[in-house]
């Protein structure tokens, strides 16, 4: 992994490495979120996942989500979001988020906001592969201001061009 704050990568993720991307002498609290591949979805046994991304669009959207979090919680000093694509086995991390601040108060809410937004608007897809089949997991609907989850009011859309 490089030192970029918002990145789509193909290799293994590390929360220590993500924490280093947001570290600074005035930082006293870092919250990280690690999304890992579960062996099941509901009652279905999962063999592995395949993640696919549209990196040229995903990385700017990750950066936008970082800015949104800092606007909502100005105490947040730095955010890093790294998403992995390709074949991921059970237990491997698909995403690592790191949120840094001088004091911890707002770091948890900001990190929770960020993972919700990533799942709502960033063009990344996953295919579940089982012993006897596979399926692309689709999000619930087109992201829009009314359907961006618990954090409504922030839209990923630009005004339509004419």
């Amino acid at each position, binding site marked *: 992994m490089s030192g970029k704050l918002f990145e789509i990568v193909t290799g293994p993720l590390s929360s220590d490495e993500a924490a280093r991307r947001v570290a600074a002498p005035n930082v006293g609290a870092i919250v990280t979120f690690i999304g890992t591949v579960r062996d099941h979805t509901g009652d279905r046994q999962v063999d592995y996942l395949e993640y696919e991304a549209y990196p040229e669009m995903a990385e700017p959207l990750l950066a936008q989500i970082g800015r949104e979090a800092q606007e909502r919680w100005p105490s947040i000093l730095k955010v890093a979001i790294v998403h992995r694509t390709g074949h991921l086995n059970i237990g491997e991390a698909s995403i690592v988020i790191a949120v840094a601040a001088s004091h911890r108060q707002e770091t948890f809410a900001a990190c929770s906001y960020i993972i919700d937004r990533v799942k709502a608007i960033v063009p990344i897809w996953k295919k579940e592969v089982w012993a006897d089949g596979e399926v*692309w997991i689709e999000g619930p609907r087109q992201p829009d201001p009314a359907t961006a989850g618990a954090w409504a009011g922030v839209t990923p859309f*630009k005004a339509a*061009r004419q």
Partner: protein
Amino acid sequence: MIQVSVRLFASLREAVGQKELARQVQEGSTISDLLGALMREYPRLAQAARRTHTAVNHQYVPVETVLRDGDEVALFPPVSGGAVP
């Protein structure tokens, strides 16, 4: 006629069998027009693309958006980066 590139992802990519296409369309065409033409060309896309998301030059835009020469159009299913947990 104008020239656009089309990026396809996930189930839509699999339905078409390609990641990227180059197409010429009439000036004034919308994404909707382009999508309709592709669905006629790739019948499996019509199945997969019931809930297609659309972006132009890395920005989400509505399907009514008018295309311009050189646009990179992206067609993909609802994002699931993913959904749960």
